[in-house]
């Protein structure tokens, strides 16, 4: 018959807590032992102990150099257990200053004998804190500390597991990734991947993933590392095999995905296209657990985001498109939870805490996969769009869901909007532009607004039936406002959208654009550091200045500023592509009846045109010649005077010289121009 401590407990615990403060090391040790038995396993006790302020005393013991190492080990055991409690317990420990003490102790710890047990416990403690995700990330690691940590990571397995976990959770910035690799982290990880103990391999995989993410240099280094004669990517393929635990397969697949996206492995590498992709698709199946399906789908979306080959392969692997549809309809059973012992990646482990969010996670993941699959290939897009609940899900998610799911919905919509057919049909049937405009006007999330504006761009293409309705919603004013935003992606999309809007638009639309944008803003955009924005602004001008009547009216109001802008571009340091656009605008202006005079009266511009006709760049020559051609066009009023003036300046002679050109395009333009001359 076992005797149990009963109501005596409260008194009993008070006694041993008091004894913690005793100077008698024997009593103190006993008290710490009792404390250990009390807190291990019990969340309530952990909380209670922390509340009683005992942590301070425990840290004191660790820091005291004269105290026995066995006592310190016991204290570290208690702290480790406290760190494994609720996140707020770990946070309280960090606040009390636990981390610097642990690092300091790790450095000064003697090696061998009881020192190694102490080291082990210190590492366990660090690992438990980092796993809770509440350790503040340092901007950069202390180099010496990092090196010694890595040294500890080679032996024994318990230390290996701890070090790998610490690095996996702590490595968050580019700089840290570099530091880790430079300190020998890649070699350590390669070694750990080959450990016979799966408890070591899994955190090693997470560590690898954390190191490679979005880092070209680090990824290329890691991809060439090897251990035991096998290269790291091959080791990863081994860990992705079907007889491995699910969380390990997923972690290995993620590592390979990140290596590919960072450029270390190409899309046609068989390990990527024939192994990683299949593993991820397999894990999306209906009979798998929710956390697995979500993680796999998210990783798959990232894997196939860019390469058309991967998109095509994925789209025909194992009914993937159909499987994703299941995600959109899934419901989570009430007693769901992530099985114990499963180790989800450090980045996403917390998001599965609340099962009621799982359906939304599923929807987000599926939308991302669809967004990636449909990014480039029209066939795939058409198949995706046939998914029965997709459009409704997108529309509801745009308005009602949390920001990450909204973003996924917009990305999906963006991919679909790259299809002309879809623009004309499905995207008209489901009124997507309305919630999209709401998102644009109300969201503070820069990424969300950028992708939304990009989508809006597509919806504003000439053949899109939504165009008129969007205009009615004050889109012009809104987009002009967006051109003033600091984020270059947003500015670009806004100008691009305006450019699309102006294409073959009615006069009132063009007037509206010029009115809301203002010539000042146009100048600013033409001086933008981002050349793409510049190009699209020029494209906007070009679209505005099309159709004779419009050209004349616009030049009448804004002619002076527009000419100034064009001269600015022609005189500035710009690529040939940019100058070509400017010349095309001039050519359009030259098409206007009244507007022609803006050019003819400007000798400087005429001289520039003549220069461009002889510059050794065919495209620029063609553009300049075309402009001249418009100026002298026979049919129009005043053609004779213009021809005389230009002839006097030497244009006729120039054209004659150009007849010797070998370029057929230029030849045609020159011939046409010459034919106009009387």
């Amino acid at each position, binding site marked *: 018959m*076992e005797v149990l401590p009963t109501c005596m407990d409260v008194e009993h615990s008070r006694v041993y807590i008091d004894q913690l403060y005793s100077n008698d090391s024997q009593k103190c040790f006993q008290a710490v032992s009792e404390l250990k*038995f009390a807190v*291990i*396993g019990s969340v309530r006790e952990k909380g209670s102990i922390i509340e009683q302020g005992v942590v301070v005393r425990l840290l004191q013991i660790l820091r005291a150099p004269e105290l026995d190492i066995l006592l310190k080990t016991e204290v570290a055991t208690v702290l*480790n257990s406290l760190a494994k409690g609720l996140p707020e317990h770990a946070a309280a420990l960090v606040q009390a200053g636990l981390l610097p003490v642990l690092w300091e102790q790790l450095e000064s710890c003697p090696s061998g004998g009881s020192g190694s047990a102490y080291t082990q416990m210190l590492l366990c403690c660090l690992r438990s804190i980092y796993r809770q995700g509440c350790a503040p990330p340092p901007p950069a690691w202390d180099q010496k500390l990092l090196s010694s940590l890595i040294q500890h990571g080679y032996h024994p397995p318990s230390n290996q597991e701890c070090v790998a976990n610490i690095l996996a959770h702590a490595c968050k910035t580019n700089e840290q990734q570099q530091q880790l690799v430079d300190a020998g982290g890649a070699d350590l990880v390669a070694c750990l991947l080959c450990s*016979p103990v799966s408890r*070591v391999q899994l955190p090693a995989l997470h560590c690898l993933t954390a190191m490679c993410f979005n880092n070209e240099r680090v990824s290329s280094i890691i991809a060439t590392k090897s251990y035991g004669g096998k290269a790291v990517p091959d080791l990863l393929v081994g860990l992705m095999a*079907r007889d491995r635990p699910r969380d390990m397969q997923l972690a290995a697949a993620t590592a390979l995905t990140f290596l590919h996206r960072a450029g270390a492995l190409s899309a046609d590498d068989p390990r990527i296209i024939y192994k990683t992709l299949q593993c991820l698709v*397999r894990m999306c199946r209906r009979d798998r657990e929710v956390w697995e399906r979500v993680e796999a789908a998210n990783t798959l979306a990232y894997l196939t985001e860019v390469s058309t080959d991967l998109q095509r392969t994925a789209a025909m692997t194992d009914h993937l498109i159909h499987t994703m549809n299941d995600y959109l309809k899934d419901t989570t059973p009430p007693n769901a939870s992530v099985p*114990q012992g499963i180790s989800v990646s450090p980045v996403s482990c917390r998001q599965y805490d609340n099962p009621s969010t799982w359906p939304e996670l599923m929807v987000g993941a599926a939308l991302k996969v669809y967004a990636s699959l449909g990014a480039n290939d029209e066939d795939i897009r058409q198949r995706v769009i046939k998914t029965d609940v997709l459009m409704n899900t997108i529309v509801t998610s745009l308005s009602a869901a949390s920001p990450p799911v909204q973003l996924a919905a917009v990305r999906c919509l963006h991919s679909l909007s790259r299809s002309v057919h879809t623009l004309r049909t499905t995207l008209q049937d489901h009124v997507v532009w309305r919630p999209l405009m709401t998102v644009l006007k109300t969201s503070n999330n820069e990424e969300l607004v950028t992708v939304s504006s990009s989508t809006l761009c597509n919806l504003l293409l000439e053949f899109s039936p939504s165009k008129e309705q969007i205009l009615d919603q004050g889109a012009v004013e809104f987009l002009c406002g967006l051109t003033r935003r600091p984020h270059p992606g947003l500015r670009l999309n806004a100008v691009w959208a305006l450019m699309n809007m102006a294409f073959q638009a009615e006069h009132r639309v063009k007037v509206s654009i010029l009115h809301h944008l203002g010539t000042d803003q146009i100048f600013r955009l033409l001086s933008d550091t981002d050349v793409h924005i510049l190009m699209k602004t020029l494209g906007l001008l070009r679209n505005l200045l099309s159709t004779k009547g419009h050209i004349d009216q616009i030049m009448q109001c804004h002619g002076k500023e527009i000419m100034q802008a064009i001269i600015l571009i022609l005189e500035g340091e710009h690529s040939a592509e940019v100058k070509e656009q400017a010349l095309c605008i001039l050519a359009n202006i030259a098409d206007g009846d009244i507007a022609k005079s803006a050019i003819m009266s400007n000798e400087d511009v005429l001289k520039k045109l003549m220069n461009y006709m002889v510059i050794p760049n065919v495209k620029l020559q063609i553009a300049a010649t075309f402009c001249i051609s418009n100026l002298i066009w026979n049919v129009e009023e005043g053609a004779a005077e213009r021809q005389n003036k230009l002839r006097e300046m030497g244009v006729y002679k120039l054209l004659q010289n150009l007849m010797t050109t070998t370029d057929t395009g230029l030849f045609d333009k020159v011939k046409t121009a010459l034919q106009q001359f009387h």
Partner: protein
Amino acid sequence: MDSDISEMSLGQEFMRTNVDSDTDQSGTNEGVKAMETSEWLEETNKMHIHRADMNKLIMNYLVMEGFKEAAEKFSIEANIKPPMDLDQLDERIRIRTAIQNGQFQEAMRMVTALHPEILDDNSQLYFHLQQQVLIELIREGRVEEAVVYAQDHLAERGQRDPSILNELERTLALLAFDQPDTSPFGDLLHPSHRQKVASELNAAILRAQNQEETTPLLAELLKLLLWAQDELNKKKVQYPYMTDLIKGQIEERK
């Protein structure tokens, strides 16, 4: 020699290696006859298992389950090296002995002293151990202590973690019966329940010792057999079916 045999649950369980459910197979309803029983047995007898392999399986079982003396003797008699230093079994043996004597609190203290992370990392196991403490108290009729223990240690856990509530309720329900072992929840009092917890704890300790396998390979083999039979049954195949694993009795499946 220990008379207690750890009971394996003979229910449907999947193999340790992952097998994907095949979604595309359409089974015929008429059922297929594999072959005659005599032919089947003849084919089976042609299978040759090496003695050395059998010995390894037995050694694995003994070591996993903590039968140290038996393992030492077997190692000599069968001339086979044990897979690890047998002194490492001592701690698991001590803990299992404590459990077999119903001393769960003692067992928990021993585990904590040796592997302080186990009970924090395996909250299900911890709950089962605590549940077992409760069961032992109820078994001995120490009703008041049982209620206090439940209040002190298990109530708060139940609040945080709804998945254990069901089990907790079943356990406490035993208190309502004069003769709990005849109650609908009497299975909790059965020695097999103790064994389940003992095995769970044993597996956790093996994991903490960085062992990759935590259940005896013999158990895995039997599970494989059961699984294979189950799959054949699903496809309505007629074959000689092993009805009794212990006796190896085979019957024609109708």
